[in-house]
Structure formats: C-alpha cells, structure tokens
C-alpha cells in the first residue's frame, strides 16, 4: 500500500505541472488584467505600458509561467523600463511556496486565500454534513419503499430541487425568510453577511447566518445525492447475499446498515471523494448572494478582474486536492471492500 501511495504521488507531480501550464495559458486568454484598473475611466496608454512592465505582463506567456513556477530571483529584470535589466527579481515561484502577489490587492495570494479558506470551510462543511445526513436518509428510505407514495413524492421533489437554479432558490429563501418574515412580524433570518456586525463573530451569530446559505446549497445537493443513494441501494438490496442475510433472521436494521449500505457506499465514496475538493472552492453563487466571504467569491472576483495570480492559486490548490482526494478515495475502497488490493 505504501509503495502504491508513493507511486501515485510521484505520478501526480508531472500531472500537476502539466495541468498548471494549461491553466496558466487559459487564464491568460481570459481577458486583460489591466481592463478594470481604470475604474470608471479608461486607463491611459502610458499607464498601461508602465503597469504591463511592472506586473511582468510584457513577457511572453511561457516566460510568465516559468516565473510563476520557479520565480525570478535568479534573473535580472528591467525595473525602470529603459530596456536594460537592472536588478534581480524578488519572486520565488510556486515550487518554493510563493504563489505571487494579487494584481488587484497587491498582497500575497496565499494570504488572501487563507483569509477566505476558513469561512468557506464553515459554510461548506456544515452544508456537506446536512447534505449527507438527509441524502442518505431520503435515499435509503426511498429505496426500501420503492414506488410507494412517499418514494414518488420524494422523487418528484428531488427532480424539482435538482433543477432549481441556485441563485433563484437563494433569493427566494432570502425574500421569504428575511424580508417577508420581518415584514410579517415573525422571527426572521438575516439577509447577508456572516454575523451581525454590532454583535461580532459569535457562534450563535454565525450559526444563525448560516441557515439560509446552507439550506440553499443543501436543497439542490440533497436532491442529487439522494438519487444516487436510492439507485445504489436498489441495486444492492436485490442481491442474493442480502436475501441470505434476511433469511438468516438478521434484523432489518443490521442488514441495511452492515450489508446493504456498506456495499452501496462504494460508488458513493467516489462521488463524495470527487466533490470534497470542490468544497474548498466554495459555492460561488451562494456566497455572492448571501455575501458570504468565502473562496467561491474570491474565485469569481479574480475571474472578473483577470487577477491571474489569485486565479492560479485557487485552481492549483484545487487541482492538488483533487489528486490527493483521489488517492484517499482509492485507499478508502480497500477498507470498504477487502477484495480490493493495490499491491
């Protein structure tokens, strides 16, 4: 197993470098990083020329990628724009832990990502717990009572939930439970933010502000996940070994949890394993609507501003996590299914 994990990690290194090069090329094609520098006015040509040089955007894309990857503290750069290299650069490159500086905020990318990371974790981990809890319960219940009235109702609501646009659902929840509940004199949820600024970031405040964004994310995801759980459970509960377990007189609960669910969970682990890295990426739309200061919004803002260092920082971190979680998922298989061996 150890050799397998080491081999996978070594294989991942060139893969990640190739991915990062492709992402860098795509990010550079997204737009002009200086387009939003003028605010409501057009940026002057002379300022554009100077900033292009100062931000290193005057270099060919592959040179820019090289600098992003390995830094420029080993090469001389032209600081004053006279065409002659003057001094060594200060960038150390991603391989040495320097993800660069945001074009817009002029701050280290990792510092910016770090600020948003914990907020996204609060939102997404809570949402994921709610999603998994309800998705498993609904999925299992529907599978055990296939085509019953409840199953049909759940199926209908699942399709409705799955097809709802997240921005629409978020705004509807906001208008009903924040705006109208307040108007009707009922207890109401806050519209935006992580906590009441007059009170501060207390646990009850954050929990209270989490309700609507978590509900928005959960309703749509529960709908999708519960269908996976239902279909996997349906496949398993008709297997011979389940019938055998029943005929041995084992209690229903035991058969469902120990025999059926464990086997049904294998494909679900793959889906969850693929989804977990995306938790880090946050929920772009939900975070924007509820003004939740997380990674999703950071990604959106960086895309809008073509802030390439920030964009690359987020994408590379997600890429690394996808690879890491794939390895973890593969390892988890061996615990769930003893037949799987990697040696």
């Amino acid at each position, binding site marked *: 197993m150890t050799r397998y994990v080491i081999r996978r990690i070594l294989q991942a290194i060139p893969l990640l470098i190739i991915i990062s090069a492709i992402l860098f090329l795509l990010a550079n094609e997204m*737009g*002009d990083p200086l*387009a*939003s*520098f*003028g*605010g*409501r*006015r057009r*940026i*002057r*040509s*002379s*300022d*554009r*020329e100077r*900033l292009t040089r*100062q*931000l290193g955007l005057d270099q060919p894309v592959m040179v820019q990628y090289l600098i992003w990857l390995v830094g420029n503290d080993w090469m001389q750069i032209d*600081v*004053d*724009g006279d065409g002659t290299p003057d001094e060594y650069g200060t960038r150390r490159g991603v391989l040495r832990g320097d993800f660069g*500086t945001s074009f817009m*905020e*002029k*701050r280290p990318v990792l510092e*910016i990502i770090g*600020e*948003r990371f914990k*907020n996204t974790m609060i939102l997404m981990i809570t949402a994921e717990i709610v999603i998994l809890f309800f998705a498993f319960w609904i999925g299992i219940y529907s599978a055990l009572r296939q085509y019953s009235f*409840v199953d049909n109702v759940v199926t209908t609501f699942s399709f409705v939930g799955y097809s709802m646009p997240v*921005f629409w659902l978020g*705004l509807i929840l*906001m208008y009903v439970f*924040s*705006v109208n509940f*307040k108007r009707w004199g009922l*207890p*109401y949820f*806050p*519209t*935006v*933010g*992580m906590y*009441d*600024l*007059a*009170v501060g970031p207390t646990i*009850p405040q954050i*929990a*209270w502000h989490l309700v609507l964004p978590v509900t928005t994310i959960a309703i749509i995801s529960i709908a999708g996940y519960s269908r996976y759980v239902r279909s996997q459970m349906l496949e398993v509960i008709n297997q011979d070994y389940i019938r055998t377990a029943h005929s041995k007189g084992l209690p229903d609960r035991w058969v469902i949890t120990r025999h059926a669910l464990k086997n049904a969970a294998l494909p679900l682990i793959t889906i969850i394993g693929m989804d977990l890295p995306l938790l880090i990426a946050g929920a772009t739309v939900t975070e*924007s*609507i*509820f*003004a939740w*200061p997380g990674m999703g*919004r*950071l990604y959106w*803002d960086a895309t809008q501003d*073509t802030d390439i260092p920030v964009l690359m920082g987020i994408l590379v971190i997600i890429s690394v996590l996808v690879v890491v979680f794939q390895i973890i998922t593969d390892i988890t298989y061996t615990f769930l299914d003893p037949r799987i061996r990697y040696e």
Partner: protein
Amino acid sequence: MKNKWSLFLLTILIVLSLSLSACAPAATEEPAVEEPAPAEPTEVLPEPTEAPPPAAPKTATMPFFEEPDTLNELYSQMWFAGLAFDLMNLSFWQFDDVQEINLELAAEFPTIENGLISEDGLTVTIPLREDVIWTDGAPVTANDYVFTYEMFMDEGNAVQTRYPFDTFVESITALDDYTVQIVMTEPYVGWAVGFDVNFLPKHILEPVFEAEGTIDNADWNRDQSVTNGPFKLKEWAAASHLILEANDDYWRGRPNLDQLFIRIVPDDEAQMAAIKAGDTDIGSFLSAADKPDIEELPDVELIAASSGYVESWFFNTISAELAAENDLQAGHVALQDKLVRRAIVMAFDREELIETLYYGLYRVPAVFWYDSPYEDTSIEPWPYDLEAAMALLDEAGWVDTNGDGTRDKDGVELVIQYSTTAGHELRESTGLVFQQSMAEVGIGVDILNYSYDVMWNSYGDDGPAARGEYDIVEWSTLPGDFPDPNTPDWLCEEIPSADYPAGVNWYGVCIEKLDELFAQQAVTVDQDARIQLYQEIERIMHDEMFWMGVRTDPDFWSLNSRLQNVKFSGVDPLWNAYEWDVAP
C-alpha cells in the same frame, strides 16, 4: 412503520427548530432609562451614584457592491475604494452636493484674485490648515503632500495612474510646513481636481519605502490605523465588511456617527433585499430598474446625484484619407456629412427610450457638460422628427435608388455599424431599438458589440474603438477632469496613430475652431470667460453632432429615513459623512 417515519420527521423538525431558536441572537433591548432619584439634602458626602448605562452607539450601515482592493489611493481607481478613501483620508478639498468647493486640508482655495495662482497660471500655492493631525498625533503638513507626489512618480511603485502629475508638474515643494507650491510645465485648468489627492502619512510610509524601495506592499495600504479623515478603520474582514469608527481628532470635531458599517454585498438583488429588510441605511450603485421596488418602501427614497457621466453616442468621422494615414478604419462615408449625423439623431426617439427602458428617470442631455455651470441652457436637444430626418437625408443625397428599402448614394448602401459593450443589457436593447428606428428612415444598422475588456483596448492593442472599427459607438463617459469641464477627447492632436498610440480622440473629430476654443479655455482662469468659451464649444458640437447624449447618467442611491443629513455628491459622494446622524 409509517407512524415511525412521521415521528422521526416530527422529531427532526422539533430538534432543528429548537437548535435554530437557540442559535438566534438574543433580541437587543434598548437600555432602560431610569428617572434619576431626587437628591436628598444631607451633610455627609453623597453615596457615589451609579453611572447611567452607555447609550447605544450611533451606527449607519451601507453596502459596497465591490470590495475596495486597497485603501491607498495610489493603487486603485475603483469607485468604491474611492468612497472608502474619502471617509478616512483628507485631500485639499471636496466637492459638495452642488459641486461647490468644501475645504478640508486647504485653508484657502487658490484664485488669481487672492494671489495664490500666478498670473501665467503656472504656479499654484495652497496654504494648509495648521490644526489637522493624524490619528497618532503627528501634524498633517505640506511634506506629506510632497511625499505623496513623490510616491506617485517613483518607478518602484506600481501606481494605477500618474496622471496628471506626469503630464503637467514641473515641481511640487513645501514652502514651509503648511504651504504647498505646485509649479506646472503648462497651464492645466483641471488642477483643482487632478492634484486633489488624499495625503499619505509620510512619517508612516517613508520608512517602508526606504526599506523596501516601494510602498506597494505597505501594511498601511490595508490597515489604516493612522488617518486624518472623519473616520478611522477599526476592522476590515476580507470580502465581508469594514467597520469604521469616528475619529475623535477630526479637525471639524468628532462626527455625529460613532460607527459606520460597510458590508460587501456583491449581488444587486441581495442588496435590494437588504434595503427592503431595513438591514442597510444606504443602497449604492442602484439603477433605474430599482425604482419600482424603492417606491414601495415608505421609509426609503431613491436619490439621484449628478455624476457628470453621460450615456453617449460617438460618431466615427474618420475619413478615408485620415484612416490610411493613421492606420485607422474610416467611418461610413455618409457620417462625414453632418446632415446625415443630425438625421440619425432626429430619427431616434430618446425620450421614448428613456420612458420605456429607464422608467423615465433620466433626461436627454442637449450638451456634454449638462448640469454644470458650463451648460448652455438655451440649447435644446435635436427633437425626434421622422419627417425632418428623412428630409435631411434626402438633402444629403442619400435616397433609395434601387428600391431595396435602404438609402444609397453613388452605389454605397447606407448601412452603419452600431457597437457597444457586450453584456450590458440596456445598451444592447438600445442597439435593437436603434436598429428598428433607423429602418423607418431607410438606414440599415448592423450590430457588433465588444466585451468591455476588448472595447477599450488602446490603439497599440488594436482596440476596436481606438482603431475606429465602428460607425456609432455607445458608452457612458464624463469629462476627463470632472467636475472641471476640460477634456482632450475632440482635439485634432489626440487622434491616435502609430507615432501617438496614446491619442484619445478615437472619433476622428478635427475642427479647427473647436481646437482653438479648447486651447483658449485651457489657459483661461476667469470662470465667466471660460463659461462663454464652453458655451461656444457646445454650440459647435450641437451643430456638428459628432457626439450625441443618449441620456443623463446620475448615480442612484437609496436612503433610509433613519439616517439624516445625508447629501450625496456626484464627485465626492460621501463628502459630508461627518454630518450624518441617525434619527432620534
């Protein structure tokens, strides 16, 4: 089993309800005010009385659609960042709600009459107030301004723009601790706007600059514990909020508000929900489409602040000769004729457009400098008159000779290209309305829109607008030095070329008389004389019609009646934040 399931669901619901109730923040109660007990006369020392409970801080809340990328003016031209700068930092003066000067750090506004502007208009001397201090107690001096200028110009700093310092300044010096002198290389009439930047604290940033060779990454850029404005930064949680607190040392005295909460709300619908729920006192960056929602709210009003911006059409008057000479694309040959340009304007019903697309909230501006002292109010917009428009086209020789429904002349069909910024729904709708309107007078319109990051690329970057790849192009613009009217947009020398890619006259306008008038106003310090010059410019522009105002473009704000004394300015929007107060 069904009962069990129902019980389970019920249990979950109860548990969730209880949990949420527990999570709900405790309702805040107004501090009870007790009647003070009447003092009893006694010979012994009175018992120490309990201090009255502190009053709740006076707080106002406003959303920002975008988070400021920095709090240092050198590094951002973002509108919202500008709002934040001005709440915490002072410049020489601000422009109030009627665009009059409101002195801040300057003790006196320079004029020729008071001798603070030299006769040749090249030297401006600005005396500073001597009672302004930074929040750490250091005095705000002329040396801070000189340092700010040096930071703008230093190659080590990746500032967003050096204009107008790099264009007009010969030197900026501190004559003494409280007198700034600016010497210009040529007269610059926009000096009162261009040189009016927030002062940087030299005593904080100079050591950073000396150590690092740049202030790009200075902590002060985001952590402004040392400021000189009405408010100072208490907390900035990235992407979430900024909390500003009153500056006790503000030179006018402590502001009425104790705190100002700025929430970053990037979704306009969410902002509207917050306005409706009363979660914010001010709403910003609103549009005409928000009018019906705001009108439903009894405590909220919609306020328009003239921003100087005007939604404009620019006609491409680049001739074939000029295009060949400067490597540009010529406009449609018909647009060389001012009769055709005027006909197009008269065939397009702007009043109807404003009524149907913009809830009637705007008006048609007759001149570029509307709502300013420079506006010639005797000029009326060209009226919507289809008959007159068709007569003008006939007079210009553009008639439908081949019966295809489109006018033509010398074998050239009158089909023009309209362009605007892609993704801007209302502008795109305007294009469609324009297309339909022109069909009525026999003009064909092709629509080709560009994304905003492509549209405004420079001549050197093959920007479609800079290269003349349009016949009519629409966007919102304002005079370059607003609220000063000076603008280089229509000067002959500003037509871009390979030798001068920075040119800003992307429209090929070159009228000798106009150049003369713009040159004359640039050195005219007398306000009345300058107004006369601008009114002459406006009459030429109205006659030549190379620019058309589609509609005025003010900033829209919502204001909850809880917050009082708020006067929005189109130049420095939150200029009187020190006077804001909450209703008792």
